[in-house]
């Protein structure tokens, strides 16, 4: 038998394919782990409903757990515990920032346009920034401009 903590530690190795510094655990998309003698069942939920990376992530979870000798891995994707950006861990937020992607501001689950301006620039740390467009290179990123260092940057969108 494996412990849930052990499984989670191994799953730290599975990264978001588009943000390779962020593990699925820190992204907050692993919603349940069920272990019995014969199999490990992992439940995941996508960040955005149409996220094309979910199938890759699912496959990666199976491969990583297989590599630790767990042959019977079952991965389910559902919306029982839907993802929101508050689920990104502190470690994950730090990794995003170091990667150059502004972490999403914490919110009360109602994302208002007001919280999308004055995002802290991951390059210079200034909050003197404006959102240029809520749609970026992937479904989960928006594009911002920093008035201080005059750099364009991306943010992991609050949702």
């Amino acid at each position, binding site marked *: 038998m494996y412990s849930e903590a052990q499984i989670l530690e191994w799953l730290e190795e599975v990264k978001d394919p588009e943000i390779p510094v962020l593990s699925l655990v820190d992204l907050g998309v692993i919603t349940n782990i069920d272990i019995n003698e014969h199999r490990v069942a992992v439940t995941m939920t996508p960040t955005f409903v149409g996220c094309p990376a979910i199938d890759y992530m699912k496959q990666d979870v199976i491969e990583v757990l297989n590599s630790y000798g767990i042959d019977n891995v079952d991965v389910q994707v559902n*919306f029982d515990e839907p993802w929101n950006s508050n689920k990104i861990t502190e470690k994950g937020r730090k990794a995003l920032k170091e990667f150059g992607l502004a972490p999403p501001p914490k919110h009360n689950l109602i*994302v208002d346009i007001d919280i999308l301006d004055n995002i802290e620039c991951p390059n210079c740390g200034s909050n003197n920034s404006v959102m*240029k467009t809520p749609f970026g290179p992937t479904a989960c990123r928006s594009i911002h401009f920093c008035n201080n260092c005059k750099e364009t940057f991306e943010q992991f969108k609050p949702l």
Partner: protein
Amino acid sequence: MNEITIKELLYKIADDQLILGHRNSEWTGFGPLLEEDIAFSSMAQDKVGQSQAMYQLLHELGEAEPDTVAFMRNEDQFHNCQLTELPNGEYDFSLIRHFLFDFAYAIRFEMLANSSYEPLAKLSKKIQGELRYHTMHANTWIKQLGSATEESISRLQNSLNEAMPYSLGIFEPSPYEAELKSEGIFEGEEVLKEKWLAKITDVINQTQLQMPDISTLTPKYGGRKGKHTEHLQPLLDEMAEVFRIDPTADW
């Protein structure tokens, strides 16, 4: 729970999102500026993804696989409203359609988040959050271009007048309105329409655009029953071209 009523509801929602998602994707590479090109492409990805999740719910109720349902039906088997299938036209028309449709759907999913049909309620709650970015985008541009120059105002006004009868077609009553309501699945198209009208009127009143008098308009109904304009079948042919040649194609 009566499965026929649920399926009818799921099909029209999924088909609306798939068809408008496809139209949005036609802006890829053609947007009037890079940000708008990305915005419509990104909304296309969201909508097609959301439709897939809806088709998955239908699959769990015994319908065919999502890809088969999406790519193998002909126009008379699609339940999308005619608004979604109209060609993109110029950017002003696409923008107005996006504004009218996404506010209707933001409210629809807000209502469905409380549905007694739990799988739909969960998914709607999730989609509701994503649509906030779509309505935010529509709002920004309608407010800006609706009060900018003579040309931008008259273009948007003409598109608004043209799109409005089709927009009313979003709310074509279902044969199962009474059951949906009594079973707590969905409060109904009429309630949705009233909420939508209040919302879009509020935005339009903040611009120099005039809200058309809807009491004088005949809604473009028929889409929900498989009656479509000449524009849908060519869209379906293009969308399904690869799948119909090789259903196992992968990339």
